[in-house]
């Protein structure tokens, strides 16, 4: 359920990036406070482990198709929330760069969806609340399943919200939710049981790996749990506040709802000449022109393509093909130039 750049608007993507960067800075600061040196190689290698583990597949019971693990909750259990969050973030960064999962703008959203919920909500509020030291394996199973399911549900719901707020999809909100949440419930249940299985198995062979971190965390978790929640709340408010300015100057969701009200192409043209000129000027000066219209005024000028006049649409078609051709020629030109310079 990686978000993709193509499904995000700049405002939604930017807001989530801001929140994610804040969380990264916070987690890094927390780790620095009581850094165990041994954690540095462990974190890095466990990040690589996630990739390696994702190469191993299993048969999803009842379906016959195969799946692999996500591993967010497992990392949180092994490393604690702060270190796990940074590991998840770096795994996603590498996935975005090397495997083209989503893209650079969506990276902020992906770290948010797959990192924040398991590490800062599901782990401290569910897993940690249920599993104390020397817990029975049944209890660990229950806590892992609950934690993974809730973390994934929050993530999936966020994907729905983010896509919907970006206004790219035509899917109605409720259908979208019905599509996303049950599938992720099933995924979450399987992942939860697998996570529990791994934790329990590792505990029998090398109890220190699981217990060790647990002991460290029990010492620190008392007050910090509340702190995490408070800080997250503050972060959310800050991110919201900083970007509400953007949101009000660049009404993204609003534009979309206006479209919904008017029905797309038949939007009434009711601008006069002066407004047209002003608009043109505004269009040329704004960085993100389509976002610079105040909500109610001329959101109707938005799409430049769906002008129904057949003349312009045809010229758009011609122009598009021409430009693509020019780009290809440009590319070939550079190639030739390179080869030429190589020879001399």
């Amino acid at each position, binding site marked *: 359920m990686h*978000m*993709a*750049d*193509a*499904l*995000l608007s700049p405002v939604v993507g930017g807001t989530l990036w801001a929140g994610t960067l804040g969380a*990264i800075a916070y987690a*890094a600061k927390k*780790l*620095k406070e009581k850094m165990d*040196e*041994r954690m*540095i*190689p*462990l974190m*890095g*290698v466990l*990040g*690589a482990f996630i*990739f*390696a583990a994702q190469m*191993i*597949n*299993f*048969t999803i019971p009842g379906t016959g198709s195969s799946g692999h693990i996500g591993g967010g909750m497992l990392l949180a259990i092994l490393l604690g929330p702060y270190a796990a969050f*940074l*590991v998840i973030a*770096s795994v996603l960064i590498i996935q975005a*760069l*090397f495997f*083209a999962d*989503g893209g*650079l*703008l969506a990276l902020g959203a992906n770290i948010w969806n797959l990192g924040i919920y398991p590490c800062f909500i599901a782990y401290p509020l569910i897993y940690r609340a249920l599993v104390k030291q020397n817990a029975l394996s049944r209890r660990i199973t229950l806590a892992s399943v609950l934690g993974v399911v809730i973390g994934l549900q929050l993530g999936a719901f966020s994907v729905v919200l983010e896509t919907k707020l970006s206004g790219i*999809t*035509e899917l109605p909100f409720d259908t979208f939710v019905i599509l996303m949440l049950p599938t992720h419930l099933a995924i979450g249940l*399987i992942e939860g049981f*697998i996570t529990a*299985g791994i934790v329990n*198995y*590792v505990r029998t062979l090398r109890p220190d*790996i699981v217990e060790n971190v647990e002991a460290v965390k029990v010492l620190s978790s008392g007050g910090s749990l509340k702190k995490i929640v408070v800080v997250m709340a503050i972060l959310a408010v800050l991110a919201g506040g900083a970007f509400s300015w953007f949101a009000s100057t660049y009404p993204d969701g609003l534009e979309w709802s206006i479209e919904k009200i008017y*029905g797309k192409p038949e939007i009434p043209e009711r601008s006069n000449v002066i407004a047209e000129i002003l608009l043109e000027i505004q*269009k040329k000066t704004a*960085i993100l022109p*389509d976002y610079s219209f105040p909500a109610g005024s001329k959101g109707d000028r938005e799409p430049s*393509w*769906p002008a129904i006049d*057949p003349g*312009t*649409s*045809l010229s*758009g*078609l011609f*122009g*598009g093909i021409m*430009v693509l051709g020019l*780009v290809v020629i440009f590319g*070939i030109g*550079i190639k030739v130039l390179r080869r030429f310079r190589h020879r001399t």
Partner: protein
Amino acid sequence: MTFDTEYFNAGYLDSLSYKDTFVHRLDPRTKILVSFIFILFVVSFPKYELSGLMPFFIYPVFLLTAGDIPLRAIAKKVLFISPFAIFIGIFNPLLDTNVMLTPFGVPVTGGWISFLSIIVKFILTVSTALLLIAVTSFPGICEALARMKLPRILVIQLLFLYRYLFVLMEEALRMLRAREARSFKKRGKEIKTFIRLISVLLLRTVERAERIYQAMLSRGFRGEIRVLKRHKLRLQDILFVIFSVTIFYIFRNFNIVSFIGETLSRSIR
């Protein structure tokens, strides 16, 4: 096995990043910045925009050709990895059936246009991300992130992850091979076996981390890892940023596509 090929692809992208061309020599910070701005410009287009996106192909094409990257390496990945965008986008043609234009008498609905727009945006943004790594190298990106004041621990973590990525992937491949050699048809892939496999891999990983830590200690590790700074901001970096952002701005705000199209159709007439 798709992950097999993906794995080798990752190594391949990495090997491309050691070429020495104009774009490879640019400061990684400028490339990250310009690529990010590029993506912001691309996704800022409204959902029915299609023709206006076309000029933006110039940036990935520039990175591809000036960086001497084989087209096939990028195209293959972009084509294969897009299930989510397509999954979300494919509903648009079904739900939005307003006919928006009829070129040559073929009715085209708004849904198809917005779907194509998603696909084009997807190709642009994803190919840019892949090309960024292909012309920058991962250590270069990490250097840039460190100098852009991202938390040190994250950067160190990224460097570590990258260093051991291939090692552990090979370990996983060996385990997969062993599983395949010992099981027939669909057997051996049950969840129970899977949990054992992953657990063993995890234990090996933790033990490896312990060995690595010992090795680091014996080489003088004191909790601090320095990131090599190899790049300096030069004039051509600044020019690259200014030049590309100006071009993106022009492409975004002036409808050159319809201008070219109009002159073309006028001259045909």
